[in-house]
């Protein structure tokens, strides 16, 4: 009986050690294979800021002028990402002057922050990114992301508690030189017409 127990115990230990060894191997081989390890994101890599460093090869004389792109962001803003999204959505596709004008008259905490970010980005564009006219910029991309939350305890009755999140968000903006592109206004009538046309374009396959 003792021999059987020790036999099983040895097998168990062998299995354990094999598992540990394989785990260590996997950990050591690299972060690309394991998606659950955040080694490339969130903590030390700020991808959005790195986009400003991208250098293109010099353009040939007959190529159309590549418009300047300026990426700017602000991290760990004490605001909710969902509330920030509404502001980011509003200024998408606007000229920078129009966006700053709108944000000045919105009664939201995030509006002031986004206005500061836009003014910083405009200054950066003129100083570092060879933009000639500071008004000749429009907002190509603007969105908000979730920052690192702090957790706190929220006390309920009867000794119960909940965990409260102190929310933070990031805000990202990409300015492009030039006038804002005109968005084609599609009415409901146009959409309905297109839908009916799609239905009419259907054919019966494998028919005579």
């Amino acid at each position, binding site marked *: 009986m003792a021999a059987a127990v020790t036999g099983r115990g040895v097998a168990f230990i062998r299995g354990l050690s094999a598992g540990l060894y394989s785990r260590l191997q996997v950990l050591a081989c690299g972060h690309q294979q394991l998606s659950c390890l955040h080694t490339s994101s969130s903590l030390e890599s700020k991808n959005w800021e790195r986009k400003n460093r991208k250098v293109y090869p010099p353009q040939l004389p007959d190529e159309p002028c590549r418009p300047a792109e300026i990426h700017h962001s602000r991290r760990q803003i004490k605001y909710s990402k*969902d509330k920030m999204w*509404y502001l980011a*959505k*509003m200024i998408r596709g606007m000229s920078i002057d129009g966006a700053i*004008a*709108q944000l*000045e*008259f*919105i009664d939201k905490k995030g509006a002031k922050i986004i206005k500061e970010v836009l003014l910083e980005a405009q200054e950066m564009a003129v100083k570092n990114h060879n933009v000639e006219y500071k008004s000749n910029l429009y907002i190509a991309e603007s969105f908000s992301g979730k920052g690192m939350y702090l957790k706190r305890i929220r006390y309920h009755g009867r000794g119960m508690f909940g965990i409260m999140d102190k929310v933070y968000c990031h805000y990202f903006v990409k300015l492009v030189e030039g006038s804002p592109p005109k968005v084609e206004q599609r009415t409901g009538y146009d959409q309905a017409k297109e839908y009916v046309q799609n239905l009419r374009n259907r054919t019966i396959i494998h028919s005579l």
Partner: protein
Amino acid sequence: MMNLAGLIVSLRGSLQRIEMRLLKAAGLDAHWAPALAVNGPGLLPQPDQEQQQSPGLLDSIMWMAAPKSRRTIEVNRTRRRSERKLIKVKNNIEPCPECGHLKQKHVLCGFCYNKVCRETSLIRQQINAMEGGPLRAPTVETVVLYEGEMPKEEDKDKRIVERPRKRPAWFSY
């Protein structure tokens, strides 16, 4: 002697047996008390008490509204991003003709208002210094004069507040 004791014991036994048989015949030997003593109403719940339970936490769950199923993220997004929830673009913003800052059409320019506020607070500080304490306002009107200005004919009865600077352009005299 032994015969006597044995006789008495046998007599006693037979008498007891006769007593038992007599009681059984009469039907008086039945045990009426229950073998185990229990609380009366607990054993047999009355039918009218069953429907009416005391209102408590369990009962209140019966009629409270509760969601039947989880709202999917698509449904949630459609509600959160619908037209009425988005921020509307304002079309009543114009530049102030005085200072050039932006203002809304039906609202005073914030910059101009702030500059007037600052000058007014300085005038008020001067007035407080002149009065020296609370509740000492004179019963006459007040006139603010800047550098190099003389009071006019109609201002001779009024209290004069001197400000040691040039008259601002927006403050006409």
